């Protein structure tokens, strides 16, 4: 599956990874690492959701279900003490993909807002399972007692820098993988489904199967985001699977722009920065955040990332 541009994407990713690894050397405070890990985890969640929203036109309100499933499965596997971290991650991704397959098979048959509602219903169902199955999940108190991080292949993730490096590597690998799908013929088939489903059907695309395929892939990627966050906070909580988490991911997409591949990541970065800065200065962050959203939506009428990108492209054209 070599496509033109893969080498360049890989190079960009490698450069990105190098940058991520160098940054903490330039600014050695642990606060920066903490911040970037959050951006990576939520960025991955938002980017994976955008495979549905921006690429396929499927507005899922229930994507956080797979985020939570990733965090919980990984946490439970590690707490069992029988597997190493890489094995647990692979098993978690596979397990979540299976859940997404079952739920997706029902959901992708519905269109538009009905799709949104049924994904929301399934997410709330999973959230209520997490809350009620106390003996397994710890209920509303979450997975207690920390998630152990036993060393593997000589890497000790209890070390702050090692954990950060590991998260960055996993994150960049996932981004590269999603970029592959975004640019692949399959990705273009999904764009066609978004813009004109009957035409897609006409040219011989199995619309339901294609939608299900990307639904499962997006779910699997979201589970990796959940793993990263669980690894970092050393726990998993029902809030991961609540509708507010899904809502935030949607907000990140809108903030960055849904038609840009990295848009959601920009959005995640901006939202985390905004959230972090505003909570420092005021407890009325809801008021501030609400006003900022209104300004962006009513003022720019598109994502900040998309807006900047357009400005840049226009300026470059003018220069030519």
């Amino acid at each position: 599956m070599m496509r033109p541009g893969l080498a360049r994407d890989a190079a960009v990713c490698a450069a990105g990874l190098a940058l991520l690894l160098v940054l903490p050397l330039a600014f050695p405070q642990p606060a920066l690492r903490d911040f970037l890990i959050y951006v990576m985890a939520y960025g991955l969640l938002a980017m994976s959701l955008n495979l549905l929203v921006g690429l396929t036109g499927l507005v899922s309100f229930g994507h956080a279900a797979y985020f939570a499933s990733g965090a919980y499965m990984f946490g439970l596997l590690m707490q069992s003490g029988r597997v190493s971290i890489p094995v647990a991650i692979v098993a978690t991704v596979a397990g979540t993909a299976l859940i997404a397959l079952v739920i997706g098979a029902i959901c992708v048959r519905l269109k538009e807002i009905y799709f949104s509602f049924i994904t929301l219903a399934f997410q709330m169902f999973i959230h209520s399972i997490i809350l009620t199955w106390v003996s397994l999940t710890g209920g509303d108190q979450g997975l207690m007692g920390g998630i152990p991080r036993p060393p593997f292949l000589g890497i000790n993730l209890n070390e702050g820098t090692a954990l950060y490096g590991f998260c960055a590597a996993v994150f960049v690998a996932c981004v590269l993988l999603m970029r592959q799908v975004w640019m692949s013929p399959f990705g273009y088939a999904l764009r066609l489904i978004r813009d004109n489903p009957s035409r897609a059907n006409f040219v011989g695309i199995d619309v339901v199967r294609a939608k299900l395929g990307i639904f499962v892939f997006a779910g699997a990627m979201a589970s990796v985001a959940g793993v990263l966050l669980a690894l970092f906070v050393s726990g998993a909580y029902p809030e991961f699977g609540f509708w507010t988490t899904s809502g935030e991911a949607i907000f990140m997409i809108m903030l960055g722009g849904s038609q840009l591949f990295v848009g959601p990541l920009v959005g995640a970065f901006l939202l985390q920065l905004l959230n972090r800065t505003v909570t420092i200065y005021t407890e009325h962050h809801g008021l501030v955040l609400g006003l900022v959203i209104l300004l962006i939506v009513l003022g720019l009428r598109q994502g900040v990332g998309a807006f900047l990108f357009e400005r840049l492209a226009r300026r470059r054209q003018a220069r030519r």
Partner: protein
Amino acid sequence: MNLDALAGCVSSSACLVTQISTALIVGMLLFMVTSGLSLIFGVLGIINFAHGAFYMMGAYFALAAYQLTSSFAVAFLAGALGVGLLGIVFERLVMSRVYGTDVLMQLLVCYAMILIADDVVKIVFGPEYKMMGMPDAFALPPIELFGGFIPAYYVFMIGASLLIGLLLWLGINKTRLGKTIRALAINPQMVGALGINTTLLYAGVFGIGSLLAGVAGALAAPTRTLTPGMGVSILIESFIVTVIGGMGSIAGALIAALLIGFARAFGAIGCPLFVDGLMFALMAVVLVVKPSGLLGREPAR
């Protein structure tokens, strides 16, 4: 599952009366919230995710008016009209600018509205629990009926909701304005071409929809605790009701709200722990079998 208890209740008039009244209490308030949501969706084609915040504002407006005047009538009107006005302002300043964009834009501005409303309430009224208290007119012992008990205030609440629901139905189905609104839902360009000011109509419909949320808030204020963020749980429930009943259908909203009321009241006796699961399951089944809901129209396309 406890079917014996359920059978025992159904065969006793006292239990039956009390539980049916419970179903109506839960259901009718839910109906008040949902009817506004449904009306706005039916006519404007947008989902007002900020509806729960309007419900909260209704309760707080009523509380403020009641503290000032000690009159429940004034409190009720303040809640209803205040939120109706707020809805019109919100529609004109914010919502009207995202008509025709995708649902995500609407979701975002409503999310912003919820955040702002919660914080403003916290700043103005404080973070503590607030309770309006029962107005003196209703401070009566519960009414006894066939051995069952129904509190006087709830009788009023059920009656008022029914009356408002009826007025709404008459207004939409029997008046000229109602006819125009129904036409607006189906073909706005045509209505505009006939020289009717659709901008005004949209604002009006959004205002009435919000007013219904305000009514629900004002009716709930004497018996429920007021806190910032109280709109969230009712929003989720009313979405379930809207989806089951059919988006845009007032009658569907009534049926679905009562369905939930009865499921809650009798579920509490028969299978208390599965009531919530039942709601989600019902919603999923409805979406799969008939996505437009019990009484919803299929989308025009």
